């Protein structure tokens, strides 16, 4: 009979342990028994595999199976290594053996330690809501959709983990995403309408984006569209405006789950806020776009800031960096100032005030001494924006304790520089002054 192991295998193995004259019958009997024993061990190993809820057997399973049968386990094998069988042809038969290289101790010592594997974490999602499986990225694409749609290759992103701390580094699978024909047509229509000249069409499209509850499937595509339009649209102010309008509509759509796409949208919005130049140089419309972008940033922070507590600090950091970099043009500074001031009084107090004094010198230089008219007007815009930001502090007003404005001039100048101190005092903003001085005292 033909078992897995031939007589020859048994004989060569016997030779290896020093038994040379093994009888044919004995070898046959041994090979049968060997096969049986191996099956037995495998059967036990399957139990261990099943209880570990795996469908792939590991060498550990074999070890446990042997231990449970009171056999010394085989040491030195573990799942990660690749084993190669080598063939050796001798006079009698082919011998197969496991290659066991000699290893240099030095080499082993010098190998850098492997990377620490990622720790086990878990994420939660809705597999079903009242018996219906929601079409979120964590759930697979339903069978029905797969049947009669044609597919498009899209990189779908996994959503940011809800606690914001555990980073999802493991996979970003290339998933086939299916869109029905209707959705595709809708997508084409909307994107065309949003960019069209006709305002009626634009408004309809934007309203549809804002109201329609069934856009979730298309959301990644719209986000992609906005990002690409912003990236290529620095020249055309209208395209940018429309992109911002679209973002606004999507953000205001109550039925959309925007969380997973924020990290794509925010860079696009920030670009519109602090870009060096937007549109043609002589067009002043870009200031409006910046204001618009600032408002969007503010609404995002208000809506998602609690859930993703690192969101606002990260945005502030980016804007602050733009604000403090003197090498950047005033257009960028303007965007940063507007952006920061929309984020609330605390931000103004903490981030703008301490930097006002050095910045006022830069501004003053431009306002008073520069002959470049364009640049001067840009500086003026920044100046106005800062004033507006300072005016928001009014709401924190504290009593002036009967002090006169003039008495406060010295500390104020020390704090925010002469330029703004003059402005505040000449216009009699005692309340703002008090707030500024108080915030200094707190420091």
């Amino acid at each position: 009979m033909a078992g897995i192991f031939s007589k020859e295998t048994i004989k060569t193995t016997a030779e290896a342990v020093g038994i040379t004259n093994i009888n044919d019958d004995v070898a046959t009997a041994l090979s049968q028994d060997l096969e049986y024993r191996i099956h037995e061990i495998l059967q036990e190993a399957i139990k261990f595999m099943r209880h570990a809820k795996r469908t792939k057997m590991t060498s550990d399973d074999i070890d446990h199976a042997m231990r449970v049968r009171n056999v010394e386990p085989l040491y030195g094998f573990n799942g990660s290594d690749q084993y190669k069988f080598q063939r050796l042809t001798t006079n009698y038969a082919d011998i197969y053996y496991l290659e066991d290289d000699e290893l240099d101790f030095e080499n082993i010592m010098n190998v850098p330690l492997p990377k620490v594997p990622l720790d086990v974490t878990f994420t939660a999602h809705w597999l079903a809501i009242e018996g219906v499986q929601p079409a979120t990225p964590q759930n697979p694409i339903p069978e029905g959709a797969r049947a009669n749609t044609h597919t498009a290759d899209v990189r779908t992103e996994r959503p940011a983990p809800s606690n914001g701390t555990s980073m999802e580094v493991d996979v970003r699978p290339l998933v086939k995403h299916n869109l029905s024909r209707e959705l595709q047509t809708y997508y084409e229509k909307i994107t065309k309408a949003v960019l069209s000249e006709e305002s009626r069409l634009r408004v309809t499209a934007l309203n549809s984006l804002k109201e329609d509850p069934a856009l979730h499937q298309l959301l990644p595509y719209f986000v992609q569209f906005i990002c690409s339009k912003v990236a290529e649209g620095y020249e055309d102010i209208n395209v940018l405006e429309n992109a911002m309008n679209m973002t606004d509509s999507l953000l205001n759509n109550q039925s959309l789950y925007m969380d997973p796409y924020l990290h794509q949208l925010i860079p696009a919005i920030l670009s519109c806020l602090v870009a060096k130049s937007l549109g043609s140089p002589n067009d002043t419309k870009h200031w409006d776009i910046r204001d618009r972008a600032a408002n969007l940033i503010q609404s995002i922070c208000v809506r998602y800031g609690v859930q993703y507590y690192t969101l606002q600090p990260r945005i502030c950091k980016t804007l602050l960096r733009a604000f403090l970099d003197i090498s950047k043009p005033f257009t960028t500074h303007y965007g940063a100032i507007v952006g920061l001031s929309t984020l609330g009084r605390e931000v103004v107090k903490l981030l703008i005030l301490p930097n006002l004094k050095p910045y006022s010198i830069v501004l003053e230089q431009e306002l008073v001494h520069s002959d470049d008219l364009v640049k001067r007007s840009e500086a003026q815009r920044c100046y106005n924006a800062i004033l507006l930001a300072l005016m928001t502090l009014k709401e924190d007003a504290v009593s002036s304790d009967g002090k006169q404005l003039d008495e406060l001039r010295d500390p104020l100048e020390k704090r925010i520089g002469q330029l703004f101190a003059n402005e505040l005092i000449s216009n009699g903003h005692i309340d703002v002054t008090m707030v500024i001085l108080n915030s200094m005292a707190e420091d």
Partner: protein
Amino acid sequence: MSAEQPRHLPDKELDKIVLNYLTQKGYKHTELMFRNEIRAHAGEDYSMGDMNAVSGYQFFPTDPDSNNPDSYISSYADLRKLIERSMDIYKLELRLVMFPVFAHIYLDLVFKGFLDKAMNFMEEFKSDHYEYYGDNIRKLSIITHAQHLQENEFAITLRSQKYNVRLSNVSTKLLLNFLQENKLYIILRIVNQYLEIEETVNHQQTLMMSDIADVTGVTGYSARGLDDFNKQKVFLGPLPPEPTFMEEAEQVLKVKDTQLNSMDPQSLGDDDLSTLLEDITKDFKDSIEAPDRNDVPLPPSKGSDIQAKIEELFELRHRIKLGASTLPSICFYTFHNTYDSLNCISISDDATLIAGGFSESYIKIWSLKGEKLKAFMNNVRPTFVSEVSDLERLREQHGSECKRLVGHSGPVFGLSFSPDNRYLVTCSEDKTARLWSVDTFTNLVCYKGHNYPIWDVDFGPYGFYFATASYDRTARLWSCDHIYPLRIFAGHLSDVDCVKFHPNSRYVLTGSSDRMVRMWDIQTGRCVRIMSGHAGAVQSLAVSDNGHIMASAGEDKKVILRDLRTGKTLRKLTGHTDIVYTLEFSRGGNLLVSGGADQTVRVWDVNACLSDQSDYNTSTTNMENGTTGVGQARNSESARVKSDEMLATFPTKRTPVYKVKFTRRNLCLAAGAFTKLSEKEQ
């Protein structure tokens, strides 16, 4: 077939010979049966005297066939042909005889040393049985030497225990007549020696598939015996509360009720709003079948128990009533970066903690509330603790995202939280079970007793007790305060793979690799129900809240619903395409949720299974017909016909489902470990 005299013997003579043979060999049942049949046929009575006339006749003329391997094979082929040709209504039943005959022929051939013939035989006919007995065929085919017969667990069971088959009387007659007429003595011998045919007189002449499946196979009991066995009285009702506990609870609830009413006077008008007091008494109204409180000794109740009960009642009011039209919401917890090392998951009853057992011998606990876990520091001095706030101050200041429990020295295979969520019991390959405190995250007790790896552990529904299931073929009952087992439940013929407490804590259910489910009485330690029907190891068990319906599932991808009172199968649910790892009834028991290696969570309608029995009979019969045809090429897909009772399937993204659990408000929680594609598969 060698030519022998019997060929020319008249019928009557032959009957006598057979009868004679039966008396000689002492097959009393068969003899009696045979006599009855003959009487029915000919209206004559054979007395012993008649028999003597032919007693000299050599029944098996030295059985020349038995040493000829080919005759074994041809006999089997003949039997196969007969069964194939018989009428459809008998075919199903007769097929049940085929596997044991097949197995014993194979073993005989191996035993007599005709190994090559045995292998050929196996190759030729194994496809007949692959569908139903796949793993048994595998177990058989590794036996290749006479000596293995004495060692192999499966061979020993087959040889030493009788194989139960339940046939209708017509089928039995058909079979025996055929065997005699064609002189298939080899098979006749096997049928006599190793089979226990239980004849049922059934007017419809055919049997329900469920009835047959319930008793087929090796159980250690005869088929009739099994039915009687499962008639033992069991108390499936809820455990009555302690009288003092009830009194106190009632007092507290009365106060609560008046408070509630005064707070919310509008609700007084609502008729359907019962008081909390009514709620609690309603629980124990249906107590005809309730066990005696003293049968399950529990420590005296504490004040906190009443508090917990009241909380439970409040939760009950928020419970969503689930059913076929209102499906549950399922929250899925996906574990990442496990590298295949996560073995089991457990979620605490209040859904605040989730624990995982790992191959690397440790256990990890996470909070599901998004809070950090804070353990007590080890300088707690009871004298300084007078209030809850004192105790809270003694917790760690910062805590951590997850706590790791180290103590086991082998893979952890099972975890279970205590009902009060303060303890966790775990079991491992290292043969021990361990009790951990969830307040301090330290090991409290190590329970040694099993001699082999422990596969599963379950905490009792009232705490205090837990049960373990082990490779050593026993399940054991422990109480937290004893380091030795209180009961050893022995009887399974193979590994006990899973264990589950009955909701009244009086019984323990176990599922085993021998394909049986057993129910044990913790008071007497005796087995009270034996239920067969699975075609593979039983990996998961669940019992409904009311304690009457049990579900089991496992390797054979089927979920079987059973009535615990009778031990009978209610329904076999098909649909899963891989091993089922976990089962759970919804609170209220209307739905059953299952999850498994096929990376789906499935929802089944329990009520539909309880209502129409007749429907089931026809549908399964059809299915069996379609899939287990002898000699037909089988389409494996057709075997996985979806049962109508399946309400929904929710696939996951490459995440086998390790655990499903319902919260008290009937939200379904499920958990599993995400499996990465290996480089090759990518």
